[in-house]
């Protein structure tokens, strides 16, 4: 995986979504993969300004990342460099780009995280792990479904 794109349709106007993305008050409410707390949220949403976020996951592990705003056009576009820091691995500097488009029900958010220079992922492609893993995961999911049916 060298990039990933996610799209969300949100029932809120673009300016509200933009503020949620760029203010510490907003970030502490949504950042992170589970219900664990955000410990640090610092933003300076202007070109050249910094962002830093530190959060704790429910398993107790803490993670931090930081970056620099490269493009700030409220309430439409936001892009920033991003670097996960302090982990066991160093995935390098990546690029986060967010586009907000006004739609009838609110906002369509397109999120792209690219330039993921992920050594393990690259190697996994080269060495054929991915195919094997995908196949085996399918098996795992089927086994789960079968278990659920009995």
């Amino acid at each position, binding site marked *: 995986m060298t990039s990933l794109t*996610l799209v969300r349709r*949100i029932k*809120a106007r673009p300016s509200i979504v933009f503020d949620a993305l760029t203010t510490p008050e907003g970030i502490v409410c949504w950042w992170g993969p589970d219900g664990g707390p955000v410990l640090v949220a610092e933003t300076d949403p202007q070109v050249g300004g910094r962002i830093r976020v530190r959060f704790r996951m429910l398993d107790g592990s803490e993670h931090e990342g930081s970056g620099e705003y490269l493009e700030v056009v409220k309430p439409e576009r936001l892009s920033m460099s991003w670097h996960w820091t302090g982990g066991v691995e160093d995935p390098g500097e990546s690029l986060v780009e967010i586009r907000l488009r006004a739609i009838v029900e609110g906002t369509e958010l397109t999120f792209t995280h690219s330039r993921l220079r992920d050594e393990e992922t690259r190697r996994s492609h080269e060495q054929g792990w991915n195919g094997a893993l995908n196949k085996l995961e399918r*098996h795992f999911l089927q086994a789960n479904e079968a278990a659920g049916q009995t």
Partner: protein
Amino acid sequence: MVNYHERLGRTFSALVDPTRRAILARLEREESASVSALAQPFVIKLPAVMKHLDVLDDAGLITRTKVGRTVTVQLRPEPIREAMDWLRRYERFWSMSLDRLAAYAEGKEAEVRKKRR
């Protein structure tokens, strides 16, 4: 307890070898197989296959059950899921975060509308 990163390391090391991947792929198709049946398609000798099975067993990717003189091997896919989760960790991170962002923004939108009434 073996920690998370050690477990991941073992899973990926186990998967590096094409013979071991072939064994896992076969177990994925056939549910279970005896050691001798697993060894059959390979040019390598049975002891070498046994060594590969040891590596897979250490990584928690297979279980071996002995009934009489026959050892039956089965796939244990949990480490695979963990490895997949790791490979997809960025996707999972942002996906969960954006779901929460949407909920938060929608709450804010509702507040703004309420105030205007």
